[in-house]
């Protein structure tokens, strides 16, 4: 099978709906300047496959949702500088409205996957208001275990994650401890 495309909705730095297609290409490169959103795209792929948010550079699932404004709670504790920022940002009230509108919309990622027999699977993982996530396959809600089982049938083993190499992690793979290496092999066995 292969990953044919993705749809992101309010995921990390992607506001609203964003679609990306990989078409029939077997080798796709993602390029762009620093801070543009490349690793966030990989986070979207990892998220929709069931990887936990703490491995996606986020404290919790809710911080994966797109945030337009300066609304990190702990940022406000950052001292006076923060207040002066708000003043400069006179349209910030409008911004807040926008933002809460975003918060109304849920955030989700859909992976469009084509199986070897050309069947299409729409794998969707959404973030709910209460910080939990729900899973669906072709529009039908499923439990997380059913979801992971469907992935496993496609040899997508989230526990092993040997096919996802996050930024800065590659060298660690070679110099990991012997026990970690055993673990890695065990996860694929």
């Amino acid at each position: 099978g292969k990953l044919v495309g993705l749809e992101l909705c309010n995921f990390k730095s992607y506001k609203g709906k964003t679609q990306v297609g990989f078409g029939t290409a077997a080798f796709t490169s993602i390029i762009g300047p620093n801070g543009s959103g490349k690793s966030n795209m990989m986070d979207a792929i990892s998220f929709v496959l069931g990887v936990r948010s703490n491995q996606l550079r986020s404290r919790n699932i809710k911080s994966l949702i797109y945030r337009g404004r300066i609304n990190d709670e702990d940022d406000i504790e950052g001292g006076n500088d923060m207040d002066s920022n708000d003043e400069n940002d006179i349209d910030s009230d409008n911004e807040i409205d926008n933002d809460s509108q975003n918060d109304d919309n849920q955030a989700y990622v859909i992976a469009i996957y084509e199986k070897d027999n050309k069947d299409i699977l729409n794998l969707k993982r959404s973030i709910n208001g209460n910080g939990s996530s729900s899973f669906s396959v072709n529009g039908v809600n499923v439990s997380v275990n059913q979801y992971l089982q469907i992935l496993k049938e496609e040899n997508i083993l989230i526990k092993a994650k040997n096919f996802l190499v996050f930024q800065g992690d590659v060298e660690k793979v070679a110099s990991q401890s012997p026990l970690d290496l055993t673990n890695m092999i065990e996860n694929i066995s």
Partner: protein
Amino acid sequence: RQDLFMKAFNHVSNNIDEVYKELTQSRSSPLGGSAYLTLEDEEEPFSYGIKYHIMPPLKRFRDMENLSGGEKTIGALALLFAIHSFHPSPFFVLDEVDAALDNANVDKIANYITKHRGPNFQFIVISLKNMLFERSDSLVGIYRDQNVNSSKILTLDLRGYAETV
């Protein structure tokens, strides 16, 4: 459980040298380097570990800790690709794995990917180095649209363009 583990271990152990050689062959070293795995304790593989040994081309045997950044990266990719061949997942996502590589090694990774990609082995690679991304079938360009404070996407199929010389 032990049988399954040993099956996986033996598969990877038999493959790793071939993959590493393919990633390290060059004009100056047609054979490439060599790599292998050893079990710290043959009897109880679970409770002990697996040691990974690499010998870059034209070098004496060195412990992992003495290897350079680029040598470790190549060793790591060889291990990942060897492990992948056991239960091949349909795709790989690699985020700037070429950061520590010199141009010669970037070229070797590009060669490996273009040779092994296919309908059942899809590569999605994030890279800042044109020597790697210009070899791909298609590009996904990401930029930040300042007006709406959001990331945006452009896609381009490279297969329509003639090979740049």
